[in-house]
Structures are given as C-alpha cells and as structure tokens.
C-alpha cells in the first residue's frame, strides 16, 4: 500500500515535528533517537490518516501516543543495556512524567509561536543573533544592512515580545535576545 502525500501532510508535519522531537527528547535525552521516534510516529500516522479524524487535537493526540508507546516499548526491550539506570529506578516513567513532558512541549510550542509571530525582518535578526550567536556587525554584513538598522529591529522585537510575555518574568530572556 502506497501513501500519497498531500500538501496538507507537509503542513501537519511542519506544525508538529519539532514538538514531537522535543517531547521524545524530554523523555530520553538523545537528539538522534528523539528524531527517530518522532519520524516513526508521523510515518505511522500518514499510513493510518484515513482512519483518523482530521480534527487537529486528535492528530496531535495520536502523535503523542505513538511516540510515547514506542519509547515505552523501546525501554522495555532495552533494559539490559540500561540496567544501571533501571536499578536506580531512573528510567521508569509514570503518568506524571509523561503528562509533564506533554505540558512542557505544549508550553514550549506556544513560546516558539510567539517568537515566530515577530515581524519578518525582526525574526531573521533574532534567529541570526540568538540561534546562530552572531554579533550585530556580523549580521549587518550578512544582511547588507547598517548596524543601526539591526539595533532598531532588535528594539522593535524586544517591544513586541514584551507585549506578549510578562516582562517581570522574562526580562532576563528578553535582554539575552536583544540587548547584548
């Protein structure tokens, strides 16, 4: 049976892939394996998508379950290698661990959305300065803009984030992104 990938499939994938990786990562702490589990969940979903409601919370729920179940199975079969962590009781997840991993993922998704809603130019500068750790001059060279423009855009981004996040809680984060 072949799967025909529709445009909408890619949308779903783009919307939830990082989240599923993050969820798996919080449980197993390994980037490569986290991506494996996330990809397997999507592949399983695409295969079954005709049987599953297209209501988004249901799709998301299916993906979470799929990642979770595969991780639990993997742990069960992987016990011998992990015997040390097992004797300390470290690797046994209960509902609280799973729920909290979902909560963390959901919160991170929303924080990322807020960042993604930044005006385009601002976001690009944000990405270069934060995610790639580049300095003002470097960004200015790369984008062919003046250092002053970069500073203005950073200030604009800072104002925007301040209007979206509680400044009392997030002052440190904001200054890390924009002021340095």
């Amino acid at each position, binding site marked *: *049976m*072949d*799967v025909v990938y529709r445009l909408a*499939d890619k949308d779903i*994938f*783009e919307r939830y*892939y*990082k989240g599923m990786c*993050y969820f798996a990562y*919080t*449980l197993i*702490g*390994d*980037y*490569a394996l*986290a*991506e*494996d589990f996330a*990809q*397997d969940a*999507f*592949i399983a979903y*695409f295969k079954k998508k005709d049987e599953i*409601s297209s209501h988004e919370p*249901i799709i*998301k*729920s299916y993906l979470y379950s799929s990642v*979770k*179940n595969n991780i639990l*199975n*993997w742990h069960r*079969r*992987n016990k*011998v*290698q992990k015997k040390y*962590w097992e004797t*300390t*009781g*470290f*690797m046994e997840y209960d509902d*609280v661990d*799973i*729920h*909290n*991993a*979902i*909560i*963390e993922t*959901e*919160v*991170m998704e929303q*924080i990322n959305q807020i*960042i993604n809603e930044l005006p385009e130019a601002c976001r690009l500068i944000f990405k270069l300065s*934060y*995610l790639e750790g580049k300095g003002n001059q470097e960004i200015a060279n790369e984008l062919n803009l003046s250092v002053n423009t970069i500073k203005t855009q950073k200030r604009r981004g800072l104002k925007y984030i301040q209007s979206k*996040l509680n400044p009392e*809680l*997030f002052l*440190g984060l904001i200054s*890390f992104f924009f002021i340095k």
Partner: protein
Amino acid sequence: MLFRFLRLNMSLKTDNIANIIVKHIQGKCTAEEIDALTRWSKADPRNEALLNGLLDTTDIEQKLMVWNAFNEDKAWQQVSSHSSPIYPIRRTSRRLRWIAVVASVLLLLVAGLIIYTNRLNSADKTMPRIVASTHPKYKNDILPAVEGATLLLASGEKVALSSEITIEDNGHVLNQDNDKIADLSRSEEVVYHELIVPQTHFFTFKLPDGTKVWVNANSKLRFPSRFLGDTRHIQLEEGEAYFEVERNEKQPFIVETSEAKIKVLGTRFNVKNYQHGFVTTLAEGSVEVYNDHSRQKIRPRQKAFMRGEELVVREADLKKDLAWKNNIFYFRNDNLKNVMQQIENWYGVQVVVNKSLINSTTYSGEIERDVPLSEILNMLEFTSGLNFSLEGTKLYIKPKK
C-alpha cells in the same frame, strides 16, 4: 481503533495546565488560575520542578535551543521519500529486535569479560581513589582518573603501563624515558595486540606510523604489530579515542568499530562508541565513514552517528565533543544521565538518583577534569538544583531542598 489511543493522553488537565502556564508567562492569569497552578505544582515535586523550569529564563533559553535543534525540512525529506510507509515501520521493529539480540549478546559478553578479566589478572581491578575529605559537606572525596593502561600482547603476555608509550617501527615499545618495556616484533606474521584503558584511567600513545592516539576511560583498542599492506588498520572495540593521524596517502588509516568504519588519509578526529551509541567527530581534514548500509563524507566541525542502521551527518559542537581530550568536563544542555555517565567513568563512583529528579532537566557547565570529585559536585550544586552526598564510592543525588 481510534478511541484506544485517544484515551491514553492529552487529558483535559494536561492541556489546561499548559495553557495556564503560558498565561502565567504572559502575566494574564486570573486568581482562580493561579490557585489551580499552585495546587497542581504542590501535588508532585516533579510538577513544581517543571513549573520552576518553565518560569526560569536560563532554563527556557536552554529549552529553546533544544527545540530549535530539530530540523523539520531535512526530516520531511526523509519521511516523505518513503513511498511505502511499511518499510520504516518495519525498520523500527527490526531495530527493536536487533537491540534485543544485541542486548542478550552483550549480556553474555559482559559476563564473559568479567570472568575473563578476573581470571587473567585481579590486579587490574580499578579502584576509585578514595581520600579523606577536605570539604565538611562530604564524608570522603575521590581523586580524578590517572594515566594508565594494560597492554595485552598477542602472546598473552600483559604489560602494565603508567605513562605515555611510543611503538617503534621495529616493534619496540618505549616509555617516556626511551626504555624498552616490551617487544611486539617477535613473530613474522602480523598479529593484533590490545590496549585496555579501564574506568578511572586515561592513556596516550604513538603508533609506529607516528599517529598519536588519546584513549578515554573504559576503552579497548586493537592494533597490529606493524602496518603492512594497503591500509593502516586498527579496531576500537569499545570506548572513545581521539586520533591525530600522520598523513600517508598510499596507506589510508582505517578505524574499525562495531557500527562503522572510518577511513582517513591524515587528519584529526574523535571516535566514540560506548554502549549508548556511535559518534565520530571531525576536527580537521576529511574522513569517510561507512558501514554495510551507508557511506558518508564528513567535513571539519561535523559529526556522523547512527540512525537505525544508517549513518547521518550533523554539525558538531567541537568544544563539547573534544572536551575529554582537552581534559575538561563540558556540559551543554546535557541531561543528568549523560552528565553522570561521564562522572562514573572518570571517578569510578556508582550514582544513585532520587526518583523525583526529572531526566529531561538539562545542565550546563565547564570544569577541568583534573580535580577531586568534591569540586565537580560543588560546581554542579551551585549551577543546578541538585544536592549531592558521597558515601564511599556511592554518589547520591536528590533535589535541593
């Protein structure tokens, strides 16, 4: 079919808590919502830790880095290129079966190895170096790993090594004072010798071609008495090693591991193959990594690792991957498991972790490895919410109260 998985998760409760936390972050919570959040966080220490983590800017900063480490474009290419999804799904279960087989073989090997090493030489046992504590908080202290290894010759002879050695072309093994301490040249045919670096030890040596090798704790290397033929071939049976390979285009240097082979002409690179996975990181030059299923070329500052049976290439954090060779502990968004595996290897302690600690919390920090354990613990305690106590070789970790 459909409802079976629905029941499993995303209860209203989880969804709600996430929304309230985001509202709290935005400063828009009602009094009732604050109440609900407080009740939730009091219900379990793990809830409290999660909430604190999500309200702490340094934690969030690290979490954002994790979030953005994943790349959906590359992943989409991989997922959508499977025209039939049956293959990858089977791949998963095959991988699981494979892990089970490896696990049982591993168990036998470990059992065999324990019996074997015990029988061979009980003096090999590596004891953590327990000393009196100079810090009132700890009952005792433990000194860092020392230089040392065992050379197991093909003849069965064992040579204890306590400092760097050089293996000469004529098979003579020289110590730092240029004294001959062993001779590998007795047989005409090429035979393999073994270098074993146990827990709480590290070692460096030079091969006959001038290549320099750093070997981390818990590692085992096999190398020939001389490099004859078209290649210079050595095996990293387990553990971690860093190679500075002397250039020789006529005789490529090949490092073989259980997962993949690495072929180079002259270059600097790290190979790690402990039981939790194979990674090779390139500092300089160019190397080719391959196994039966795939083949990859990696450039400097990139690493290759296994995904299922296939090798994939990513950008590497050179400082982090080579930290051990530069004699530092360098943690960057590492979870407790990764941090503690390194501590165990280096100090020979057994870590006992309190169940209320969450594996997803990550830690960052940098400290020289050449210090007593108490200094590492002080650093970690200062930068994290962890509390340590040390009793003999048992290291207990619980949340700070």
